């Protein structure tokens, strides 16, 4: 009864093409925004915000990036961790070498540098397709890890290869508390999500999906394959770079190349598979799932068997991740987002059966 479109006639194309054409959806999003901006800081403990919400939001940004490349454009990438690393190190170098730069500009520039790197990595994508391209992204992943581990220049010549990030401030206001970091990241998330949503419903989004669905046909109707693929790499690595920079500055407060290894690339890939490839909502669902799973497992383990050694828990986690990936790919390849859409469809008819 609640979720109905009756009476909501879209009287213009503009209304039909809006991000949330259904009124109830708009209200829901506004409610979520209010909840996230106002309610959460009031009720959640610092531990929860710093330990779970902040990383969740950062992973969501990273997931949006990977989803654009792999979910929307169909280019499998195993090197997203490398993009995050490039973003983190770029931001560090910008912030420490040019302290006058405003921090938001630092993050955006870091994203831009990563985007350029992403275009380089994706440049063979016209000649090399499918698995081979995935292997190229793997090469980038290993190369970047090695580069940041080997050359002290990236950390300003410091003796230790892991270094703390400088303090941040916006227009004189120092960003120190957990809540400060939370709002900063939230700002990026809101703007980034909106931007991504706009892109995927525009011409470039259709071009990306066309390349994914049938790239030969796309070329025949005039879509330029190279430009489309490279733009996907660029936007994807921009988001990855910003996520990496935020990860370093707002979450772990240090730049550490081991934080962006192959397992991180696979983790983000799992997020978009479970959450739903080709869906912005899926990025959030997947990130939430991956962040929440270890917590849930821990709770269940406590209930059943007292203390389980963390090594064993980690193994069980691996098994569940792997098993869930296989499960989702078999049962619902479009992930939680599709399950959610199906549920919404049922909700529109409820309480009627059809």
């Amino acid at each position, binding site marked *: 009864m609640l979720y109905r479109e009756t009476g909501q006639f879209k009287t*213009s*194309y*503009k209304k039909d*093409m809006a991000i949330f054409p259904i009124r109830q959806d708009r209200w829901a999003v506004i409610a979520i925004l209010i909840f996230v901006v106002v309610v959460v800081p009031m009720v959640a403990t610092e531990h929860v915000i710093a330990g779970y919400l902040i990383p969740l939001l950062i992973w969501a940004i990273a997931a949006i990036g990977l989803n654009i490349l792999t979910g929307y454009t169909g280019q499998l990438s195993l090197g997203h961790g490398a993009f995050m690393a490039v973003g983190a190190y770029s931001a560090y170098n910008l912030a420490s070498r040019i302290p006058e730069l405003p921090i938001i500009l630092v993050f955006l520039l870091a994203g831009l540098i990563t985007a350029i790197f992403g275009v380089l990595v994706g440049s063979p994508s016209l000649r090399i397709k499918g698995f081979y391209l995935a292997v190229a992204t793997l090469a980038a992943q290993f190369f970047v890890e090695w580069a940041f581990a080997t050359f002290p220049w990236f950390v300003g010549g410091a003796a230790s290869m892991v270094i703390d990030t400088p303090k941040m401030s916006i227009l004189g206001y120092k960003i120190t508390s957990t809540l400060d970091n939370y709002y900063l990241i939230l700002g990026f998330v809101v703007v980034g999500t909106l*931007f*991504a949503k*706009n*892109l995927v*419903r*525009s*011409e*470039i*989004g*259709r*071009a990306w*999906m*066309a390349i*994914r*669905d*049938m790239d*030969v*046909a*796309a*070329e*025949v*109707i*005039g*879509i*330029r394959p190279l430009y489309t693929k490279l*733009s996907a790499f660029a*936007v994807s690595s921009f988001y990855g770079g910003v996520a990496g920079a935020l990860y370093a500055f707002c979450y772990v407060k240090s730049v550490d190349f081991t934080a962006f290894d192959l397992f991180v690339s696979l983790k983000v890939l799992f997020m978009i598979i479970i959450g739903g490839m*080709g869906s912005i909502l899926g990025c959030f669902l997947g990130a939430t799932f991956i962040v929440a799973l270890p917590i849930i497992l821990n709770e269940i383990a406590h209930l059943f068997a007292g203390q389980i050694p963390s090594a064993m828990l980690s193994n069980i986690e691996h098994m569940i991740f792997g098993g869930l990936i296989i499960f989702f790919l078999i049962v619902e390849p479009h992930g939680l987002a599709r399950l959610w859409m199906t549920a919404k469809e049922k909700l529109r008819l409820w309480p009627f059966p059809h």
Partner: protein
Amino acid sequence: MSESQADNIILGFDNVSISFGAVIALTEVSFEVPEHEVVAIIGPNGAGKTTALNVINGVYQPTQGTITYKGEVRQGMRPHQAAVQGIARTFQNVALFKGMNTVDNIMTGRNLKMKSNLLMQGLYWGPAQREEIVHRQAVEKIIDFLEIESVRKTIVGRLPFGLQKRVELGRALAAEPDMLLLDEPMAGMNLEEKEDMCRFILDVNEELGTTIVLIEHDMSVVMDISDRVIVLDYGRKISEGKPDAVRNDQKVIDAYLGVSH
């Protein structure tokens, strides 16, 4: 069918041959397609009809011979350039983007006409938004014309084959092409659907003046709507002319009946 005075030749094949390794697909095929006409390419299976279409729109490059389009000799034209120059086409097995809905699929056909860049699209403001709306209107006109309003938001992968073919035609029309290549546009359709498609094709030809080159197996359709017919067999042109003349050509009858030659 349009009776016309001496029209310009929009497409010319001059001794075109193409082979893939040991497989010779076309041998010294020559013909001319006058502007604003409906030309059908027919022939038994494997005659090289789809290959001819692929050569026209740049998917394959001929190993020999020249192709002239709009009066200019083409060298190594790629599909993207063919699209830019006003050639649109449909495919035998429906090359739609199965993950998108009808509107979006047809909107991709407008991509050559869209100018806004990535940044503007991301902000979805001003020029980018206006452009989307303008093109959406053009697409809706096509949806209206092809009578597929009811499946506007359906993911095309779920549509029946006949409707998919119609959507594909819509996508080709969205580019406002000068020449339309149709590869078996009526395959898998029942009588009513075929009549609808014929009507659409003729309307496009008569109202918009679009030159049509189509491959078709249904002889009654070919006879009804084409101005001119070209017959291929084993990669060679064996006949050409008005539909009635071709129908009665002994060589054509032999080819279809499988008389060895």
